[in-house]
């Protein structure tokens, strides 16, 4: 009928459940679009499973917004970056490019780590050197680290390029030479004697604090800090394109980080399109095949029926998990293989149930009346039998969607997820595997679980709303 789709949509949106379900679904769709647009398609291999991409993030820290509920102020994760120097000085020892970063330190604790990196260094002649020092709010200044860019190799001619692909990065908190400098600083300024090897774990406490005379530890020192990076070169054409100083926070982003410092928010967002794709493709394909096979089997009868039913029996009695494990080993851990297997093993159950429903309808008077009108068997199957199956089929399809997402999550849980595509299941799995549950890293395991549940809920709500569309007996009469 004309306008059938429009009627269906109005009907779906006229119920509260339908409205909520569709809203949820649209939100999921929008997030999925956002994820696809903002992330490269090889997000999994290039970023998510590449530890180098997350090196500058704090590990295992909760979401930034949880700081509101804390009594003491946690360190905000802050990245200072500069591509142009703040100041260039010509001195007798060479040209000094100064990069200054101002840190307004108001936190009640030390940063989790500090790191420094430089990128895209070009030089002619003798290699440039860089140094990092801190001007503290108490007027003391502390020289942290000095680094000379490696000299030209044999046969290399100017301009010499360094750190083009991967930046030179130093983890200041764990650097022995920094420890030596800080131990010296403590000795000189506070007359506190701590050996540099003992100091390695507490470098940041010392840099951003003052020694606690009673307790023996350090008290955070609040105020304005200045991180000064000086790059000294002998040639005015030399350049450094990226200077970065990271103040490692104890809270991060919207969803916190995991044990490799990955921004969980990005992984969860990328999980949306993946989950929708797994769920919808599997559910639609399995129900379409199952329904078609079931109707043909039930209505045609005879040899076709026996063939389809025995085939379904065999497929539905093969244990799915061993097959999945087996195929994952043989064919590799590919998402599309998982989807294909879920479809192949998902439709027979549907076909068996649909067939039994069709058998009941086939012997009814509606089919007889239709035959006597001259209707072809395809017409009867499509126009008279299918609509009676439709509520069931839609319900099944919608229930199959979260089931497919869960099946994939289950597989990921067994370590058979596709490593090139992050999914909620994999995030959950990694959380469990690293013991996040027992340590209390709730931000790592709860959000993926909640998202899986929300996805299921979305489809259930749509199913409830759809019921009235596919079954006119439930429609309300509008005057």
């Amino acid at each position: 009928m004309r306008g059938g789709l429009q009627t269906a949509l109005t009907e779906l949106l006229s119920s509260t459940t339908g409205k909520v379900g569709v809203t949820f679904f649209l939100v999921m769709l929008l997030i999925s679009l956002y994820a696809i647009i903002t992330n490269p398609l090889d997000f999994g291999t290039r970023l998510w499973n590449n530890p180098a991409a997350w090196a500058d993030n704090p590990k295992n820290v909760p979401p930034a917004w949880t700081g509101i509920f804390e009594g003491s102020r946690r360190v905000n994760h802050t990245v200072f970056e500069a591509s142009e120097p703040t100041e260039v000085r010509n001195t007798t020892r060479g040209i000094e490019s100064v990069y200054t970063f101002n840190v307004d330190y108001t936190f009640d604790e030390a940063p989790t780590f500090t790191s420094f990196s430089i990128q895209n260094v070009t030089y002619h002649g003798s290699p440039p050197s860089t140094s990092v020092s801190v001007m503290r709010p108490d007027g003391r200044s502390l020289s942290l680290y000095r680094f000379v860019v490696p000299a030209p190799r044999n046969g290399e001619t100017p301009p010499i390029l360094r750190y083009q692909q991967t930046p030179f990065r130093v983890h200041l908190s764990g650097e022995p030479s920094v420890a030596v400098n800080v131990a010296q600083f403590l000795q000189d300024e506070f007359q506190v004697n701590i050996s540099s090897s003992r100091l390695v774990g507490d470098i940041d406490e010392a840099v951003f604090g003052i020694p606690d005379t009673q307790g023996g530890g350090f008290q955070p020192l609040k105020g304005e800090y200045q991180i000064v990076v000086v790059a000294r070169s002998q040639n005015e054409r030399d350049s450094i394109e990226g200077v970065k100083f990271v103040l490692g926070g104890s809270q991060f982003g919207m969803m916190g980080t995991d044990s490799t410092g990955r921004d969980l928010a990005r992984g969860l967002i990328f999980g949306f399109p993946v989950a929708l794709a797994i769920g919808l493709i599997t559910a639609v394909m399995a129900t379409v095949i199952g329904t078609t096979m079931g109707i043909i089997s039930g209505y045609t009868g005879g040899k076709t029926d026996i063939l389809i039913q025995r085939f379904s029996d065999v497929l539905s009695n093969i244990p799915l998990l061993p097959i999945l494990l087996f195929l994952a080993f043989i064919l590799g851990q590919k998402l599309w293989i998982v989807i294909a297997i879920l479809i192949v093993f998902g439709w027979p159950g549907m076909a068996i149930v649909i067939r039994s429903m069709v058998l009941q309808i086939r012997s009814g008077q509606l089919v007889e009346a239709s035959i006597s009108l001259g209707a072809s068997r395809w017409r009867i199957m499509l126009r008279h039998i299918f609509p009676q199956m439709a509520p069931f089929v839609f319900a099944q399809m919608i229930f199959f969607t979260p089931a497919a997402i869960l099946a994939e999550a289950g597989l990921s849980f067994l370590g058979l997820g596709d490593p090139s595509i992050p999914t909620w299941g994999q995030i959950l799995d990694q959380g469990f595997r690293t013991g996040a549950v027992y340590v209390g890293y709730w931000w790592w395991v709860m959000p993926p679980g909640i998202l899986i549940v929300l996805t299921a809920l979305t489809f259930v709500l749509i199913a409830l709303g759809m019921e009235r569309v596919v079954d006119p007996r439930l429609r309300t009469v509008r005057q």
Partner: protein
Amino acid sequence: MTELLRIEDLRVHFQARKGLIGTIPVKALDGVSLTLEKGKTLAVVGESGSGKTTLGRAALRLVKPTGGRIFFDGEDVTNLPDSKLKKFRRRAQGVFQDPYSSLDAFMSVSQILEEPLAIHSIGNARERTDMIHHALQDVRLSPVEEMAAKYPHMLSGGLRQRVGLARALILRPDFILADEPVSMIDASSRTEILYLMRDLQDTYGIGFLYITHDIATARHFSDRIAVMYAGRIVEIGPAEQIVDEPLHPYTVALIKAVPEPDPANRLRQRPVIPGEPPSPTEPPTGCRFHPRCPSAIEGTCEVIDPPLIEVRPGHHVACHLWPEGVH
């Protein structure tokens, strides 16, 4: 008088499962012959299991006959493949017993009525709407526009059966099989539907095969009556004669079983046919009615199968009591 439907020695046997692999034939129809004239009504009366519904289904070619022949308007349609039945399907329609399951609950009345037109590609959208409205007027469903938009679940049994009738009528058929069309409808709307069918017959000259277990309505609404027992016709003839002067003991018993609305009958024991209808897998030898027959002739009835003999003009009986007809 021109012949519309002629059935000759029609046999329909079904294979019933017996044990794990064995099958056993169930003889639903075992040698039935009858003719229906254009614009006339032939009622087929019998108990449950007598084969009357199978006869109707075979007449519409909904089951494939095991033997015998079916002629429709002179053409042999017995073994036409489904692909060549379309012409027959357009001219022969059915109204079924259950108005609750014979209409598609997922279609509105106008969709239900449009379907036969769509199947046979008749008319464009406007013409179809006109035809649908006309058919609804024919079965006196009004207001037409309002009715066309309704779904079957919004209608009562009687109204649904009118929709079923309209669906059968919309193709202007020559033959309608009415398989117990009023048995599932409220008593109040039964006669209305039956009168409506007779009016439509007068208007369009449709031949009805009216299958019923109610011999009283059969007398009123049909020209001829065929009485079936255990897959056979035991008596066939003009409606008044069959009811007023039944000859076969089974017909006699059937008519006696009809309750009469007389308060004096309240305490009177009505005669009932003793025993059960025979099993269609193992029908009795000789006359199939003999185990239950009050006037069975010993030595004859259980041995010899009585043939259907014309005992009066147009009145045939298969019974050993009437070997040479009625004088």
